[in-house]
């Protein structure tokens, strides 16, 4: 089974991808309207909470954090997939990532843009949020650099900036193709964004170097970002939070939910944009195998966390663990274990891996499991910490649910805008992949370069999308 059809013409690739950006159908507008409605729910809930106080979120005295922080970790986690696919797989030369990394990177940026909202929404005094940043003040007031929440602000800010830059840089050659084929406002937009890309040797050389540099920078950054998020919990003294394995556990969980989300979006894009030629079953299978491996790492880290808590004989931590097993949150806990550790075994079977509807449903369940995981990290500890008088269970109010619900709408909205404004499959990298596969198969790579149709007059020579014929930087573009 091939990852991609090697005989596909380069012009065909341009055509297919550019087609996906045109003429939104009715379904697209329905999806946009749904997302806006979801965001609207969240905005109304937030206005209410802002005006009348956090009490309406049903937060109470031991439960100072709840769904907001859980969903924050969920979205941060999801952002790790783009880095994994683009940066890590780029560095290890796994070229099957090429048709699918673009939307994964977009997912990274957008889920960070969603995640970043939650720490703000959960603040009691949202209007003073900038106090977390170290701006120069005459009164000499700084934030508390010992607080993991301040680290969070830096980590998310850095990660958002660099992942957005990474997404943009990787898109420049494709934006040039769009520029050459666009009219009207799109033309102006792509002219500005493609930064004068002509596809000459020097530009390719600089481009490759920058892209590699960004990839190398992003990998440790992504790992550190989720480690820092985990230190919100690991740095506290609360039982069930103060756990040494939290940083790797969070990073594994992040990659896991990110991969699951990639499968979901893969299926959706493949179906709606008819990207069957590019998002092939073989690539889906590879993604599924990767997800399975990460799921097993996650399961393992879960089990050693239980074991170390159990044998550690820290009474309070043990009780929190038992409360997770039997307590009021047990249904959610076991659902998380089922979705996170049992469902991924569906990915272990070749037959199921190749069945797209199954994979779609499984990936949704995996992400449900990962969302529940974050909730089960935050809430049971608050419900059963040290002081018995404060043992309490709490059910989040509609305000919290509406904001969590709306965050999915916000993410969806950003993504929907993205797929119609930017190419969601990397054209130049797919061409590169086709080229390499042809060379490897011993076929003449020149054949695919020729344009199958006569070019119309108003469609100028595409200048952007042709990478150098080999992986070595600096060779003349075709």
């Amino acid at each position, binding site marked *: 089974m091939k990852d991609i059809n090697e005989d596909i013409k380069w012009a065909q690739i341009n055509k297919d991808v550019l087609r996906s950006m045109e003429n939104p159908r009715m379904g697209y507008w329905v999806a946009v309207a749904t997302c806006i409605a979801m965001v609207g729910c969240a905005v109304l809930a937030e206005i209410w909470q802002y005006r009348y*106080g*956090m*009490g309406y979120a049903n937060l109470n005295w031991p439960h100072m954090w709840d769904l907001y922080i859980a969903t924050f970790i969920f979205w941060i986690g999801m952002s790790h997939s783009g880095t994994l696919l683009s940066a890590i797989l780029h560095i290890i030369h796994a070229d099957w990532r090429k048709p699918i990394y673009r939307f994964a990177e977009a997912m990274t940026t957008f889920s960070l843009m969603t995640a970043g909202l939650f720490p703000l929404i959960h603040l*009691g*005094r949202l209007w003073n949020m900038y106090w977390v940043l170290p701006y*120069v003040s005459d009164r000499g007031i*700084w934030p508390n650099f*010992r607080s*993991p929440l301040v680290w969070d602000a830096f980590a998310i800010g850095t990660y958002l900036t660099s992942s957005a830059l990474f997404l943009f840089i990787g898109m420049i050659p494709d934006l040039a193709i769009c520029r050459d084929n666009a009219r009207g406002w799109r033309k102006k937009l792509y002219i500005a964004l493609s930064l004068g890309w002509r596809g000459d040797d020097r530009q390719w050389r600089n481009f490759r170097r920058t892209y590699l540099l960004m990839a190398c920078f992003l990998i440790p950054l992504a790992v550190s970002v989720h480690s820092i998020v985990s230190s919100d919990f690991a740095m506290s*003294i609360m039982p069930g939070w103060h756990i040494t394995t939290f940083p790797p556990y969070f990073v594994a969980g992040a990659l896991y939910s990110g991969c699951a989300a990639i499968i979901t979006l893969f299926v959706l894009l493949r179906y709606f944009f008819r990207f069957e030629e590019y998002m092939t079953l073989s690539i889906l299978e590879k993604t599924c195998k990767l997800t399975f491996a990460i799921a097993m790492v996650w399961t393992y880290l879960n089990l050693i966390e239980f074991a170390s808590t159990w044998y550690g004989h820290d009474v309070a931590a043990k009780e929190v663990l038992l409360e997770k097993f039997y307590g009021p949150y047990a249904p959610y806990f076991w659902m998380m274990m089922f979705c996170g550790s049992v469902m991924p075994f569906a990915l272990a079977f070749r037959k199921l891996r190749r069945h797209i509807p199954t994979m779609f449903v499984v990936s949704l369940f995996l992400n449900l499991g990962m969302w529940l995981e974050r909730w089960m990290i935050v809430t049971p500890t608050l419900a059963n910490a040290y002081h018995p008088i404060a043992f309490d269970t709490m059910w989040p109010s509609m305000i919290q649910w509406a904001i969590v619900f709306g965050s999915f709408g916000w993410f969806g909205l950003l993504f929907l805008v993205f797929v119609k404004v930017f190419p969601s499959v990397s054209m130049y990298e797919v061409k590169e992949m086709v080229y390499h596969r042809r060379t490897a198969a011993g076929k003449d790579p020149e054949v695919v370069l020729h344009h199958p149709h006569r070019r119309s007059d108003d469609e100028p020579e595409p200048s952007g999308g042709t990478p150098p014929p080999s992986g070595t930087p600096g060779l003349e573009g075709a």
Partner: protein
Amino acid sequence: MSLQNILTNWSQYRKGHEQGGFHDYEHMWGMAVDLNKCIGCNACSVACYAENNLGIVGKDRFEKGQGMHWMRIERYWDEPNLAPGVSEEFPSRGASFLPMMCQQCNAATCEPVCPVAATYHTPDGLNAQVYNRCIGSRYCSNNCPYRLRYFNFYSYYDWSWPEPLNMQLNPDLSVRDKGVMEKCTFCVQRIRVAKDTARREDRKVADGDVYPACVQTCPTDALVFGDMLDPESSVTKLWKAHQVELGKTKQHKDNEELRGYRIFEGLNTDPCVMYLERVREVEV
């Protein structure tokens, strides 16, 4: 000019705020609570509400866990010795009371986690909360093992003190708005007055110059308050008598009969409140 300020006071900026609290304390306010004497009358709690303008949240919200009782009397029951299969939620005997106020930990877990340093250690050995600086991230409360921090979930001044109850609000301290964390301060406004008076009279604050509202109100003198840096103060003497010392995670006692202990001492929070264990005959 800000930049000038940074350059001239660089060492101060670099330090951020104090590492692990102050080391040259002016005072070290502490407390001792004799559980033998506590009768669970809740007068301390009422006094605290009156003194500190605590929001009265109403029954529904209190049941939801949104109460603001800085000083709370916790009730615990002995294992009810009833017939098998019979249980009472509130048995008629075997109750114990535990008055809990902010323990003013010297290694407070709430302090390092606040993103804006709204809670910090004062030279008085108090764990202070700066309402104006608080942005309501609520991390401090999550990291307090005693769960002694209370959050303003609503703007209580809208409805908490209807006319003419607003006239009884204490003018010595502010009414907090929604979105701000608050907690027991050992009645810092009273400590402030006592220190100012003592300075005007050119003397040191003497033992008995200042009491928090709860201590003043306690009908059985179960609560003892004072400066633990003053060797003559009654609180210091009590701590000494029960061989409880600050800065330890475990107390070594010559006499097993001594009743003093600090809550969650093993977590190394180093609280400034000592409890004297309740001793009684448990007859069946």
